[in-house]
């Protein structure tokens, strides 16, 4: 059975977290820059198509929105679900606002991984990804258990 493919566009912290949580169940590809992510997303072979994008808030010097714009403006990617993660160490006191912004941008989930234990982060990531794959595209998904 073909495993679902996930593109992880994140800082090393986020990539490590996702690798630990999901590598055994999904085919993962990693990007550290917008250019790398764009190249992977636009590979032509059907078997190279991605089923989900996981993008970090601090990806490539905070170019998260730039990547999401590219995805939404590209024909065959415009319904690709995406999950936003915050994995960089340190407190952010606008987290509720950031979560609300992620929802407005169309994210299927927002995960604050930076203050979780490793096992809690693994569990949260697996749950959020399973939810993303079970919920139809374009339905409001962020309120359905990604906390």
């Amino acid at each position, binding site marked *: 059975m073909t495993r679902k493919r996930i593109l992880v566009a994140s800082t090393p912290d986020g990539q490590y977290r996702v690798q630990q949580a999901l590598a055994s169940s999904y085919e993962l590809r990693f990007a550290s820059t917008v250019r790398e992510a764009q190249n992977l997303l636009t590979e032509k072979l059907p078997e190279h198509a991605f089923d989900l994008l996981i993008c970090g*808030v*601090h*990806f490539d*010097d*905070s*170019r*998260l*929105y730039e990547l999401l*714009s590219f995805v*939404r*403006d590209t024909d065959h990617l415009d319904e690709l679900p995406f999950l936003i993660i915050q994995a960089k160490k340190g407190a*952010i*006191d*606008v987290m509720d*606002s*950031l979560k*609300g*912004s*992620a929802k*407005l*941008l*169309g994210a299927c989930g927002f995960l604050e991984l930076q203050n979780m234990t490793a096992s809690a982060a693994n569990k949260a990531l697996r749950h959020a990804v399973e939810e993303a794959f079970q919920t139809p595209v374009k339905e409001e998904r962020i309120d359905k258990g990604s906390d």
Partner: protein
Amino acid sequence: MPEMDGLQATAAIRVYERENNLKPIPIIAVTAGGTNEEIALSVGMNEYLAKPVRLEQLRTALDKWLSGRVAP
């Protein structure tokens, strides 16, 4: 703002622009704290100015983002 803050307003504006094929308007964050530059840029803001904003900073930012734009 009463209903949403600057981050959420930016996200909403960016979605509206995309859905209506509008040219993105420059958005400059002016903040006294809380939001940091990385977060502001990640949701689609173009520039970040921390209060107290000096006139020269503001002028530079406006010159940067308004040059070449034509009033509707």
